[in-house]
């Protein structure tokens, strides 16, 4: 179980789940959760490659930066969704339809 492939499989599954969530969910917060899954799948990749590839620490460092950026992004995204809720009383991204596609 303790091999690079296991981790890559898990990360690929997480990535696909995140992709599926972003595409199918209509609730703004659920879409954000899908994006978090995608970011974390990349993190697992970085750590796994750094751990098993016999590489230097740059993989771990990269993952740390990604965690920080993901937190900042989530903060801004949630603020925007709260703002939408205050104005439109919904967090459903399909109901925000004033601008035509």
């Amino acid at each position, binding site marked *: 179980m303790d091999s690079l492939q296991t981790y890559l499989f898990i990360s690929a599954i997480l990535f696909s789940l995140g992709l599926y969530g972003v595409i199918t969910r209509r609730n703004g917060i659920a879409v954000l959760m899908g*994006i978090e899954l995608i970011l974390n799948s*990349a993190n697992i*990749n*970085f750590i796994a490659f750094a751990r098993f590839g016999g590489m230097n620490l740059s993989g771990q*460092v990269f993952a740390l930066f990604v965690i920080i950026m993901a937190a900042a992004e989530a903060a801004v*995204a949630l603020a925007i969704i709260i*703002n939408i809720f205050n*104005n439109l009383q919904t967090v459903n*991204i399909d109901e925000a*339809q004033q601008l035509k596609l």
Partner: protein
Amino acid sequence: MSNLQSLSLYWPELILSGTILLAIIIDIFSESQQSKKVSNLVALGLMLTLIAVALTKHSPTTLFMDALAFDPFASFIKSIVIVATILIIVISRNSNEFEGYHTGEYYVLLAVMVFGMFLMASAIDLVMVYLSIEVVSIMSFILAGYLKENPRSNEASLKYVIYGAFSSGIMLYGLSIIFGLTGTTKFFEIKDAINALDGSANLALTLASVFVLAGFGYKISAVPFHFWTPDVYEGSPTPVTAYLSVAPKAAGFALMIRFFNQVFVDGASLSGMGWSSTVSFSWPQLLGIISVITMSMGNLIAIQQSSVKRMLAYSSIAHSGYMLMALPTISSEGVFATMIYLVMYLFMNLGAFFVLIYVVEKEGGETFEHFNGLGWRMPIVGFVMTIFMFSLTGLPPTVGFIGKFYLFAAVINAGPAFYWIAFFGALNTVVSLYYYMRVVKAMYFSGEPSDVIAVPSFSMTMIFLLLAIPSVFFGIYWVPVLGWVKDSLLLFSQVL
């Protein structure tokens, strides 16, 4: 260079960060709603930064243990970004869209975004690529939704944050695969590691490159990663729209040029011609196809728009396509043409958006009907808008023509394999004539000619002239731009 030595070449960024911190502190203690003080301070700081960019001279090198490149190319992109930002600060102060909002943070956010774009212009490390794109994106999310009470602005920021976070997530996954294949995050080490790979990694490399392209494509709004562009551009405050259509695009192109020309190409120095791609995956063809689809899609949908703001949004997608045209040639001539186009595009696109800001303020709307008879009612505004529309189409004697001329020349000189891109580019220019001229037609041939002539305020007239005069002048005598771009066409490269 080591960290301490790097600081001596890092003056522009240091001045900029000082400005940002000072602006935040002043904003906290300022009482007024429309923070003129903060905007003055940020504009002053940016001018000092511009001077520092111009004065910091050194042979190309790397900063902070190979995280950033210091070269004339980065300085060139930084100058474009600063000029665009200063113009946007001036127009934001003259726009009434922010009435009732506290605008201190607005200028601070613009300055932080400039910092992010500085990093984008010089990133040569995957960590820095991701960080800089995210810094710029997060600031743009906030700026797009700056009008908190306005549902359209809210919706723009929601769509932006979802598309933006999604594309950067996909790009990050691609970066992680590249890291896994090569074991390093530095561009030049990646290049060597890719050269050493055997054929079995081709699929993974292709997949990773396409994922990374999704992140870059989103930043420069290339089809099929453009879906956010029209809605975000339409819903955002118009000064922010104008900014997003110029500055982050320039930085995105810089990042893209650096990534593709330094990671996937042998002989990454821009000294000579005749480079070749080192990877089996045919990314020049892919970029060519994306370029053609981007310009066609942008132009064909722009025709159908009734709102000028939305039309300009699609037109900016089309212009991304034109600029992408020269990248697949893998030659210094292609990079050269793209850089010239970025300068020309700055004047004409900002000009068109500034006229739109003025018309929205005076006429109360942004559809073609609001432009009816404008040329007779406001002769100056009508005249400069005509110049910008001619320029965006690419008609001589405007800067748009010169920019397009160099792009087409680069594509055709690259050989028969690229003629099809030039063919579609020419076809698209003809299509774009229709909707740009529609604005001119509305201004001069529709509506009632009126006897009352309105003249914009002195400051607005100056801004219009500041953009309209270079739009014509550089179309007739473009040697200064040419010389500047030629001097800047030197990317840092490393021979290991």
